[in-house]
């Protein structure tokens, strides 16, 4: 089945078997291994990527569903090697412990901050409820998203000024 889509800004026109899961295509065909499989049935959030800016679970998504759409993975959230504010904040606050769930959390947080640049802690907690972290107890993940939101707002203000 021929599909047209972009992944991290790069365009693809590709023949893909329609029963291919997006996570397998990203990991195995494109070698984008930040996308993690923690459960394979849509219950942990580790495989979260953005499709047209909306978070989806790539383990439950089949390739035909992304036809004509833009996929963003953690590898594509910055140009080159610099850290995105969310990545820096996860490192600084201790939001990363083992790091296996981190890409999924960062992607879902990115979607939040795109929609709401100044979320409250409660709004953050509500937003990330679909993702499971077994290491941190979540507090430092919420700290990270709050901190990144502040940095991004300040950065935006600096740009606007």
């Amino acid at each position, binding site marked *: 089945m021929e599909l047209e889509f972009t992944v991290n800004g790069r365009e693809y026109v590709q023949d893909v078997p329609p029963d291919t899961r997006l996570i397998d295509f990203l*990991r*195995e065909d494109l*070698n984008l*291994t*930040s*996308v*993690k*499989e*923690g*459960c*394979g*049935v849509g*219950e*942990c959030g*580790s495989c979260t990527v953005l499709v047209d800016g909306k978070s989806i679970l790539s383990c439950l998504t089949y390739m035909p569903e992304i036809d004509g759409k833009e996929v963003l*993975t*953690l*590898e594509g959230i910055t140009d080159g090697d610099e*850290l995105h504010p969310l*990545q*820096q904040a*996860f*490192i*600084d*606050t*201790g939001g*990363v*412990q*083992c*790091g*296996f*769930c*981190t*890409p999924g959390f*960062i992607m879902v947080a990115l979607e939040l901050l795109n929609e709401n640049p100044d979320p409250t*802690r409660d709004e953050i*907690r*509500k937003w*990330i*409820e*679909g*993702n*499971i*972290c*077994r*290491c*941190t*107890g*979540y*507090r*430092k993940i*919420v700290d990270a998203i709050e901190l990144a939101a502040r940095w991004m707002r300040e950065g935006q203000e600096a740009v606007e000024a």
Partner: protein
Amino acid sequence: MSGEEKEYDVVSHSFPKVDGEALAKGRKVFLDDIENSTDLVASILTSPFAHAQIVDLDTTKAEKVPGVESILHYGNVPRVPHTTAGQGYPEPSPYDAYIFDDRVRFVGDRVAAVAGTSWEAVQEGLQAIEVEYKELDPILDPDRSRQSEIRIHPEEDSTGIYDPEKNIAAHVDIEVGDAGAALADADVVVTAKCKTQFAQHAPIEPHIATAHVDEYDRLIIRTSTQVPFHVRRIVSQVVGVPIKKIRVIKPRVGGAFGVKQEILLEDLVSLFALRTGKKVKMRLSREEEFVSSRTRHPMEVEVELGASKDGRLKGIRMEALSNTGAYGTHSLTVLSNVGSKTLPLYNEAPDVHFYGDAVYTNMPVPGAYRGYGAPQGYYSLEVAMDKLAEEVGMDPIEIRKINHIQEEETSPIFEKLGEGKEGTVQYIHSCKLDECIDVGAERIRWGERGSIKEAHDTEDKARGFGMSINMQGSGIPLVDLAAARLKLNEDGSFNLFVGATDLGTGSDTVLAQIAAETLGVDLDNIVVYSSDTDFTPFDSGAYASSTTYVSGNAVKKVAEDVKSQIIDLAATQYGADSKDLEIEEGRIHTPGGTIDLSDFAILTTSGELELDQQQIEATASEVPAESPPPFAAHFVDLEVDKRTGEIEILKYVAAVDCGTAINPNLAEGQMEGAIVNGIGYALTEEMEFSNSGEMINPSFFDYKIPNTEDIPEVEVILVESEEPTGPHGAKSVGEIGIDGAIPAISNAVRDATGITITESPFTPEKVWKKLQEAK
């Protein structure tokens, strides 16, 4: 000894994790990313029956499936009794496991394994294996098992089983003084008997391992493990390849919590690699992780406390019945820890009796799980303490304060009861438990709880406050071995090689901080390489809260050695006395002036040095003589909905004394994660089974791990002490956080409603039923 404020440059600072950037960028650091594509993949066929004899196993059809390359089963692998427990040699667990056996002992037990060129081929191959089973009566209950005629391990070659006739894997019985007499003489006696469930570790990265045979005929195993050196030894033992032919490498680990202290895949990937000559990968699905990996020992623990009228403990009797499932991995040591990690806390009681059995059943296999028996012990002990407080009319805080161990005190339990054998004498050198209790009480508003309850209680909802105190340990004394190697590079940086195993906890960072502090250099001049059996020195592994304390002391020792080598060489070079030299902030201070370590380091390998150039390096070993306990106090403020039995946690506070927190942010992270895991254990997490012993909820949808909407943010306070035997004053902190939630929540429910919940998890159904009974 504690209380002294020390100034540190690197230790006691919250540096970001040394691997933080790689992880936050999602780089290829986990095994499934590093080995994204291998020649072969493999999976396991598991038993559909809880107890059965395999009469016949036919692989003829499976062998013909296109892509299938190798099949393993009991008929074609060595039969070597061993334990899957990654414990120090000789392991205290019975040798009752086999790569494959002609008998299956739980739903999920290994039957066969298939390697093939694709996951699809492997699945097809597994389905094509024809197995004829003769079903045997399954025994699902440990008490029934002790009395049953049916034997779960009738095989003659298993060793180390306490009483195979009665299905008792392990037994413990120690007594200090005469607890029976003390209880008979006590003014007040209270009892609590609490029961815990099968619970799962659930690291988000399931088990995964790869193996291949390299160009020099060596077996190279990569595995997400807590115990690379034990993996090497046990694979050698069961597969029959000498240790020198095996290299085990640990990549980053996506969480472990004890479940990766088991050898679950490494023997199979090794056999496949040896038989096919190809690189093989195995990984468990989430369902397999639930059904076939390891769990926490369900237990029934009865505690009887005797005290004087003024609340001082006179005697304690503790009896434990542990369900060790189909195999006895960690059965003795977890059982021992139920007593050894709890009873010394109340050393006011001179007479103590601890005894119990770990019993085989045809249920999934419990193993090591964060806390390692202590959470099961604390549940009954701390519920009993609250009953005692009520009985003698004291505040729960005050009764604990007059009974708990203090600095410079000891408990005879330390000597009587170790991990599966006698322990070692130990005095407490650092204990800020009273401060932990006080600060926790203040944050939860313990003193105002009467008026808060009065203001909020309604006909439908009852507010309650509860607390518990705990201790754990820091490694296994006189058993663990940790070693570290450190070498100086020409630019003044150092390579630190540790066998210690970072599971995502941040131990690479913590150990680097200890090295940097000791050497007098910046953290970014320490390059850590950990857990590779060819290149790093031995370490028992990351378990028993050992890494910061035991491995940390090895790192401190090696750094002291290397530092003195640098100073001696510099003293000779500059004609000074070693004692007049010091290294600070990366500079060597001599009486004649200061030189950057980087400028001196290049000399050590060049002809410019007036002496012989040399590689400055050292290796140091640490065998701990003691296991200084961290201490913690947990407090909870909650509300019980009397109509539904639902418990809502409103606030949760824990204060911990872990000595010097080498990295306070990471120490908080250990506590916060363990507490949330503990709250899940208390409220929702339970493996459920059919009547035939099959797990019926093997998914995150049905096995409920807390997410951000289920619980409030927990608050952790570090109450630092200075442990004189620890590296820069540190104790370990990996496990203790999981001990407190069950008893604190149970005590708070009792405070709210008057009912005592004696069975975890505290589901609305159980709470509601108890409330109805109490009406």
